[in-house]
């Protein structure tokens, strides 16, 4: 439907698009993603024909856009611009009806077909309830839906949308993109610039990633959106995980750490606190490994999202022998092992002796309290160099102990130990706790 060949555009003396080529098939929803200033809006303006390229050709339905008259072009392409000046007292219905301009001759009156198109466009965008309100009296989000309704009333086979969800609340973001997806399912072709990568991945058949006026990646969202592409295109570190609900890639940008961390860190623990610790360490530049983590746990997802090696195990079972081996290898090659999130005593049994351990303040011990030997292991490992003022729990007296409170007590002591050891430990502790605090 749309073909772009060797497109170059300069605005003033600034080159904005440099030799861009892409194609959009009939009935496809293509998302344009990229950092601010990457050229998304410019590309859409060239596609719609309002901006003439310096070189290159855009064809829509086989004809060069530049060679079509405004009227013919607007029958083929409807545009939902990012911002529309609507500073006058037209009613919402009047504005939507302006979408019928290309279908009416200068001396023609509005036909019933025009009226039907306007009403159905307003219904689909749920603006009917304020159809008779002045366009100046509606909110920004409502206004954006009115402009979408105007484009629908245009009944063009191609829809170009520039940030259609930018000023919408979550509900209307989803409803708007659902609507666009429906329109595409009905046979229209759409190209949308979308800032929210997760939304773009969820709705688009294909993503085109623009960076510095060039297409740097193009293809299905699952293939295009990975940590390195996102990192290159946006100059930002981000975790890319499969959204547990939609199954499509979800991109979570990571706050950049205060201090870079050049170390290998192994993380033990489960849940989102552990996941957060993994992502934060990775964002700080550490080589992160994790495990044992039950498959499907948030920590496992986070580790995959930041390309960290993770040892997953079946949930609710003892750690299998081969997994123990993997974890021990990771621990052995790590500069430090960090406990974060919910730490099950089953996981602690895996750690070899002499492991240097840092417990973050999110670390919570979990278990039945009967696995005394694993606790002893930790105690002997972690407190090896510490002053022997902690009273080790008596494993042999047979009394059920409150394992959690024991762990809390130890955690404090383990942190103290970390502070007394080398600077690396400090870095880890700071990086982890900073990250956790920031995320709150």
């Amino acid at each position, binding site marked *: 439907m749309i073909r772009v060949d060797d497109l170059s555009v300069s605005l003033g003396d600034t080159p904005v698009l440099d030799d861009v080529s892409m194609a959009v098939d009939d009935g496809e929803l293509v998302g344009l993603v990229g950092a601010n200033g990457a050229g998304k809006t410019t590309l859409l303006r060239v596609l719609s*024909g*309002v901006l003439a390229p310096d070189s290159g050709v855009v064809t829509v339905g086989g004809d060069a856009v530049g060679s079509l008259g405004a009227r013919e072009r*607007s029958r083929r392409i409807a545009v939902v611009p990012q911002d529309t*000046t609507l500073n*006058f007292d037209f009613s919402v219905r009047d504005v939507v009806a302006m979408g019928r*301009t290309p279908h009416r001759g200068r001396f023609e009156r509005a036909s019933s077909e025009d009226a039907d198109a306007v009403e159905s466009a307003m219904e689909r965008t749920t603006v009917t309830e304020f159809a008779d309100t002045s366009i100046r009296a509606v909110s920004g989000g409502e206004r954006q839906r009115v402009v979408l309704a105007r484009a629908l009333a245009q009944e063009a086979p191609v829809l170009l949308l520039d940030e259609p969800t930018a000023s919408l609340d979550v509900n209307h973001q989803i409803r708007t993109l659902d609507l666009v997806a429906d329109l595409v399912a009905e046979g229209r072709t759409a190209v949308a610039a979308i800032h929210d990568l997760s939304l773009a991945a969820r709705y688009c058949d294909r993503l085109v990633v623009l960076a510095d006026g060039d297409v740097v990646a193009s293809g299905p969202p699952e293939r295009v959106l990975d940590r390195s592409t996102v990192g290159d295109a946006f100059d930002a570190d981000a975790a890319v995980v499969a959204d547990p609900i939609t199954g499509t890639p979800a991109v979570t940008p990571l706050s950049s750490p205060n201090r870079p961390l050049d170390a290998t860190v192994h993380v033990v623990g489960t849940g989102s606190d552990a996941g957060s610790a993994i992502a934060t360490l990775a964002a700080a530049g550490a080589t992160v490994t994790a495990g044992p983590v039950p498959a499907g746990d948030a920590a496992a997802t986070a580790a995959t999202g930041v390309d960290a090696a993770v040892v997953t195990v079946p949930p609710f079972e003892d750690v299998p022998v081969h997994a123990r081996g993997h974890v021990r290898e990771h621990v052995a090659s790590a500069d430090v092992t960090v406990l974060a999130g919910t730490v099950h005593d089953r996981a602690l049994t895996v750690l070899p002796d002499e492991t240097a351990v840092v417990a973050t303040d999110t670390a919570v011990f979990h278990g039945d309290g009967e696995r005394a030997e694993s606790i002893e292991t930790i105690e002997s490992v972690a407190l090896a160099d510490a002053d022997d003022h902690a009273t080790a729990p008596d494993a042999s007296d047979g009394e059920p102990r409150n394992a959690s409170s024991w762990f809390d007590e130890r955690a404090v002591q383990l942190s103290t130990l970390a502070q007394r050891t080398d600077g690396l430990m400090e870095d880890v502790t700071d990086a982890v706790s900073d990250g956790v605090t920031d995320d709150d």
Partner: protein
Amino acid sequence: MRPGVRATTYSAVLAIGLLATVAGAATVGPESISYLVVAKALLNATPVPVGVSIEGGLGLVLAHPFAFEVPQTSELIVVRLRAPRIVLAAVVGFALAAAGTVMQGFFRNPMADPSIVGVSSGAALGAVAAITAPSAIAVVTGLLGVPAVVGVQTAAFVGAIVAAFLVYAIATEGGRTPVATLLLAGVAVQTFLGAIVSFLIIHSGDSIRRAMYWLMGDLNNASWGDVSVAAPVVLVLFAVLLPFARDLNVLLLGEEDAQTLGIEVERTKRLLLAIGSVVTAAAVAVAGIIGFVGLVVPHVVRLVVGPDHRVLLPTSALAGGIFLVASDTLARWTAATLPVGVVTAAVGAPFFLFLLRRREVHEL
């Protein structure tokens, strides 16, 4: 209500209002003449087209079907003395308000008025030069090889068109005419031409009074001749303008949006600008510079009928006619020699400020 129906209803009401105002204005003067007599005299003088003649070029065959009994002096006063001035006021007010509506929509700027692209200052230069320095005009016409005798009106009209074209040419680059550039070029050209006009006036000697009257907008010397020149130009161009009302609406969305909605923006802008300028030039040439009508009337009418140009354009034009006839009647009534431009400004400006303070007029 559909815009077409609204436009027709409002326009019909205003057209009746305009006729009533014209007739009412004709009763006012040193000799008071009754409404009935005025109506009869005006009807007697109204030509009605009854056919088309092809002898000696295409032309309309006009007839005067009414023959009411009216005292001869009254008929003479109404038809020969008062009516030309009143009808000319109606035509000029109609033209200025229509052009003002187009310019405000076109520029998406509430400050826009018909003279914004330099039409009025061009006309002023032409007219003032013809009044104060006819010999200079003769030199120019001699160089161009056209008849040496150029009337004030012709000079004003030519000056207006040349100035508008100059502004347009300055603001156009590569086939595109950005509205903001046009606006600024208009202001600069107006200032420059204003300087020349001031210079001419300082050195005008005895003709200063005539020049000042022209600059303030004056209908004292109106004749049926003026009406027969201005009215056809204004009405024909207005008829061309009306079908573009919808384009003006869409242009309010911004030029890029308008383009994606199928409007050939640059072509439409050129056409609107040309028609708006010629309509204004025709009005200014016969009446001088009458301020405020083109600025205030569209704002006030917009308050009542809304921003839809399909309704706004005809109603605003008719209301402009009513306003100028009423203002000119006031000018005639207060002092025989008061220029009408003084009245429109003196009445219009405070009224506009009142609306502004009430926050009724702020944007388009």
